[in-house]
């Protein structure tokens, strides 16, 4: 080994170690922030290692420097600006966008190397280029579609819910396989066919998937982008790339699995089952509500004032209404009155696991008040009032009682066990799954119709009038 090789080797070794420690640290609340910085540091270290190696061996031409600087400044600048500006509620689509760009990067590197070979091309080289293009393209188009669907720019076209889509996707898949092997055989012109059909495959697979399942898809695509990075590692012969890519790929798979469990969905049904609502229209015929009790904000405030223990169930609706800060005001008042307040966080509350925790933390809700589903479920029978804010499917008792329901088996919060349940909701529209919520029909449930933020603001007013939270 020459000196530059040794230097790069040592730096790479260190970078891998730090990256692994970073991922490990990210799985604990206490160490997460430092771990994230550690990983970022490891990434910059790896760049230093690579550049120092080339400076010590072949040297880096001025022209190369110019293009390096142009590329890195533009990319970093846009990335940093987007990261600072984006609201917390649209975190899932932002992650999807970043992820898609990672895939695009792998795709471009492989394309570049395929068109202008930088080393003698071998079979292994051809295979890794093809894999990189294939996975990179799927990651890119899939992530962009996921982002567009979460943003509401794209809806789910009807044809994608029929069997037609399987046929279409199989055609794309077969076509990309043909292009794949053609490319490996040395027919470079089929590279464009591979790019096009694998891009189409990414779109075709992601488009039919319903909004509720999107987080799982993003997590899976995240895993893909790791695989794409590892494949790019084979293309440029870099161990560091392979290790980091493989780590992300494997970690992404585990995370996907964990998310699937939380939603009681198998990965197969997410990918090939279509959106939940499409199946449920056939299975749940009892779509009509028969026993809805609606009540005013005033009644709600009176009940809250008399309560000893209140559990809040926040959902995505709360986040959309940007009402987490107003909610915090309400709970502060209740706490000042000696009422015990706890937030029940369903594993998939919000649009991504953990998303709701982030949103509530943004509103200064103490971390200790956030209770996970398994911890809080035994508490519901001893609870006076449950406030359901913009959550729907995660409090549907059908998941426990009705074996014919598509939700059956999904872990839910047992809010109906509480003495009184208030559901704050804009209207009677169904949740993500598109399924009727039996909770709304129960005698101890009252609906408070209105935008979450407005209702909560009114609630603050009513509580004030009652003198709640004014002691001391």
């Amino acid at each position, binding site marked *: 080994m020459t000196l530059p090789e040794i230097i790069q080797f040592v730096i790479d070794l260190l970078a891998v170690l730090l*990256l692994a420690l*970073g*991922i490990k640290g*990210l*799985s*604990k*609340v206490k160490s*997460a922030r430092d771990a*994230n910085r550690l990983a*970022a540091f490891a990434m910059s270290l790896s*760049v230093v290692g690579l*550049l120092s190696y080339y400076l010590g061996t072949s040297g880096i031409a001025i022209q190369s420097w110019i*293009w390096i600087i*142009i*590329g*890195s400044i533009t990319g*970093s600048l*846009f990335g*940093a600006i987007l*990261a*600072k500006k*984006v609201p*917390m509620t649209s*975190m899932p689509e932002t*992650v999807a966008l970043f*992820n898609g*760009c*990672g895939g695009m*990067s792998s795709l*471009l*590197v492989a*394309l*570049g190397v395929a*068109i*202008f070979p930088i080393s003698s091309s071998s079979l292994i080289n051809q295979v890794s280029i093809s894999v990189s293009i294939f996975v990179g393209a799927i990651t890119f188009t899939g992530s962009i579609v996921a982002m567009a669907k979460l943003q509401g720019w794209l809806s789910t076209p009807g044809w994608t819910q029929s069997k037609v889509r399987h046929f279409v996707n199989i055609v794309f898949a077969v076509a990309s396989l043909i292009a794949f092997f053609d490319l490996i055989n040395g027919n470079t012109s089929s590279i464009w066919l591979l790019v096009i059909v694998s891009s189409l495959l990414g779109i075709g697979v992601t488009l039919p998937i319903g909004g509720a399942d999107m987080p799982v898809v993003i*997590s899976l695509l995240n895993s893909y982008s*790791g695989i*794409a*990075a*590892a494949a790019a590692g*084979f*293309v*440029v*012969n*870099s161990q*560091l*790339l392979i290790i*980091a890519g*493989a*780590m992300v*790929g494997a*970690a*992404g798979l585990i*995370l996907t699995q*964990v998310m699937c469990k939380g939603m009681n969905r198998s990965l197969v049904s997410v990918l090939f089952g279509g959106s939940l609502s499409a199946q449920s229209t056939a299975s749940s015929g009892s779509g009509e509500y028969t026993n809805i009790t609606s009540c005013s904000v005033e009644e709600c405030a009176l009940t809250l004032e008399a309560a000893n223990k209140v559990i809040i169930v926040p959902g995505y609706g709360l986040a959309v209404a940007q009402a987490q800060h107003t909610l915090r005001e309400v709970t502060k008042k209740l706490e000042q009155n000696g009422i015990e307040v706890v937030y029940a966080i369903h594993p998939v509350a919000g649009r*991504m696991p*953990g998303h709701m*925790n982030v949103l509530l933390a943004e509103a200064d809700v103490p*971390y200790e008040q956030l209770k*996970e589903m398994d911890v809080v479920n035994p508490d519901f029978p001893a609870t006076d009032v449950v406030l359901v804010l913009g959550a729907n499917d995660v409090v549907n008792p059908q998941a426990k009682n009705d074996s014919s329901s598509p939700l059956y088996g999904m872990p839910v919060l047992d809010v109906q066990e509480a003495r009184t349940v208030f559901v704050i909701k804009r209207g009677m529209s169904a949740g993500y799954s598109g399924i009727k919520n039996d909770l709304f029909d129960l005698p101890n449930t009252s609906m408070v119709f209105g935008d979450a933020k407005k209702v909560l603001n009114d609630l603050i007013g009513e509580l004030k009038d009652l003198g709640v939270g004014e002691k001391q």
Partner: protein
Amino acid sequence: MSFINLLWVLLLGSLLGLELIGKVPPTLHTPLMSGANAISGITMLAALTCIVKAEGNVPLLIIGSVSLGFALFNVVGGFFVTDRMLAMFSRKPSNKK
């Protein structure tokens, strides 16, 4: 580095990834996903290699540069956004005291 050795690296790297994410509290799923996502932007190294080895080939330089841009967008944005999320968790204890 021979191909076989690289395959070993791939295998061990995957095993490491499987091991690292053992038990993650749901709170951290989104930040973890976002952080892992930033790490997948490590393809920036491949893009850099491409640019350095281009030897004056302008189309390859451009492809490499665009690829580097996409990768860094992923990396920088990913780490910043993760930090923003995690900052909200770590702010709590200091507030109380």
